[in-house]
């Protein structure tokens, strides 16, 4: 190991002609290993900039203040979502826009309204008992062992089981799904992303065709019963919806559980707080979501505008890391401190505006259940020295491996 880290050099730096040199920063989180090592530290070095230009990936704007982020995501006519899944530079790994994330109003509203009731707080409560059973079964396998890889043994299978069983995907297919989605979300080499995207597409086409006439009482049956513009979804629209829900529903909760447990494993005092008062867990979850808002989303500028004195052109990309919305001192005092006694936490881990994470309420339940069930069985634990913590960067940074150890009772 060496303390000297090689300085990252941006490949093919691009500064569009309308971008003033004074607004260009040496920022390339998607490729800089410094970001993978410490994503929030990396982002927060630029937090006071407001609006700046990164010359990486064909060039894009970055917005670092909650108030500016709000303005952008609440204005989908100027800041379009049409490439939000492909990211920056604008790309698409699916032949059509993902539904509903890559749609803009008024179409977006139709599909979103059709789906919202199934993802509302009132609706997702029905998934809680099943999720609790999945968590208990996973914990039963590792508790007596005294160690586990939090990601492989808990954070990856739990959301997969909760989502896939709800959606109606057959259990024997879950491991394959995990692999494809992990590739697509983790920004692995382009070749592998394309291959996994193709495999997922082929799988979902088969699934949609097989299920087209069947009502199994699962979420996909509700998608088939949904109506947009006064008519049912076409086969392509059902497929595009299935694709988007699979992408969004699996990896993100894994990453969230990873960030929460990384913090807990390195802060024994918070484990003690939970042991003394498990009823605090929803507040702990909300504060850790705020502190570790890891998702970056992007927007595509549809027309030339002056945005707070910055000239943006149609076709520009805007990167919106949610961490800047959650860790803005104007929103929350001492934003880099984890304080589970905060009242009325305002944060942007799930984004904002009409594209606010549809699955936010389910994700919160899954996180609360993960912490409650884990701490009921394993109240005290720490990072293992036996194997390394392995991280990944990209638009949803987190952990590939998070080895934990704990004391077990000897019989």
């Amino acid at each position, binding site marked *: 190991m060496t303390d000297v880290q090689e300085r990252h050099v941006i490949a093919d730096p691009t500064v569009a002609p309308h971008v003033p040199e004074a607004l260009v920063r040496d920022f390339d989180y998607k490729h800089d290993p410094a970001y993978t090592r410490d994503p929030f530290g990396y982002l927060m070095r630029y937090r006071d900039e407001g609006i700046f230009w990164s010359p990486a990936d064909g060039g894009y704007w970055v917005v670092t203040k909650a108030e500016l982020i709000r303005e952008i995501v609440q204005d989908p006519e100027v800041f379009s979502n049409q490439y939000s899944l492909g990211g920056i530079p604008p790309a698409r790994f699916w032949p059509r826009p993902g539904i509903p994330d890559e749609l803009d109003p008024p179409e977006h509203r139709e599909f979103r309204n059709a789906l919202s009731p199934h993802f509302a707080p009132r609706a997702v409560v029905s998934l809680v008992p099943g999720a609790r059973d999945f968590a208990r079964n996973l914990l039963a396998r590792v508790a007596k062992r005294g160690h586990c890889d939090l990601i492989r043994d808990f954070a990856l299978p739990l959301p997969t089981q909760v989502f896939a069983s709800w959606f109606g995907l057959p259990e024997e297919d879950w491991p394959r799904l995990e692999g494809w989605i992990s590739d697509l979300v983790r920004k692995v080499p382009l070749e592998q992303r394309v291959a996994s995207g193709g495999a997922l597409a082929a799988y979902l086409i088969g699934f949609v065709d097989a299920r087209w006439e069947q009502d199994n009482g699962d979420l996909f049956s509700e998608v088939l019963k949904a109506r947009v513009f006064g008519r049912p979804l076409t086969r392509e629209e059902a497929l595009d919806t299935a694709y988007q829900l699979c992408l969004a529903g699996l990896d993100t909760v894994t990453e969230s559980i990873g960030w929460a447990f990384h913090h807990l494993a390195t802060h024994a005092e918070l484990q003690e707080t939970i042991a003394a008062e498990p009823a605090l867990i929803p507040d702990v979850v909300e504060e850790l979501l705020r502190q570790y808002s890891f998702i970056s989303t992007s927007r595509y500028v549809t027309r030339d505008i002056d945005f707070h004195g910055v000239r943006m052109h149609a076709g520009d990309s805007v990167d919106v890391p949610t961490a800047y919305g959650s860790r803005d001192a104007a929103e929350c005092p001492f934003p880099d401190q984890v304080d589970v006694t905060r009242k009325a936490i305002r944060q942007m881990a799930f984004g904002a*505006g009409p594209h606010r994470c549809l699955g936010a309420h389910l994700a919160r339940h899954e996180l609360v259940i993960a912490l409650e069930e884990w701490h009921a069985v394993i109240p005290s634990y720490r990072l293992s020295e036996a194997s390394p913590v392995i991280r990944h960067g990209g638009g949803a940074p987190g952990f590939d491996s998070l080895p934990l150890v704990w004391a077990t009772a000897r019989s």
Partner: protein
Amino acid sequence: MRAQVDPSLCVGHGRCNAYGTDVYGLDDAGYCHIGHAVVPTALEQQARDGAAACPERAISLSE
């Protein structure tokens, strides 16, 4: 105190309801509806917390 939600900004975060359960209700799709035209004095803190937690800043309070 009066609480008002701007329905064009509410996107169903549900945080108003989480922190101000007796002031802010949620409809079947998860969007905010306010039960009291005038917030009872005993619920003013809930009204403030629920408004403060809204990521969209969709709720306004007036005396």
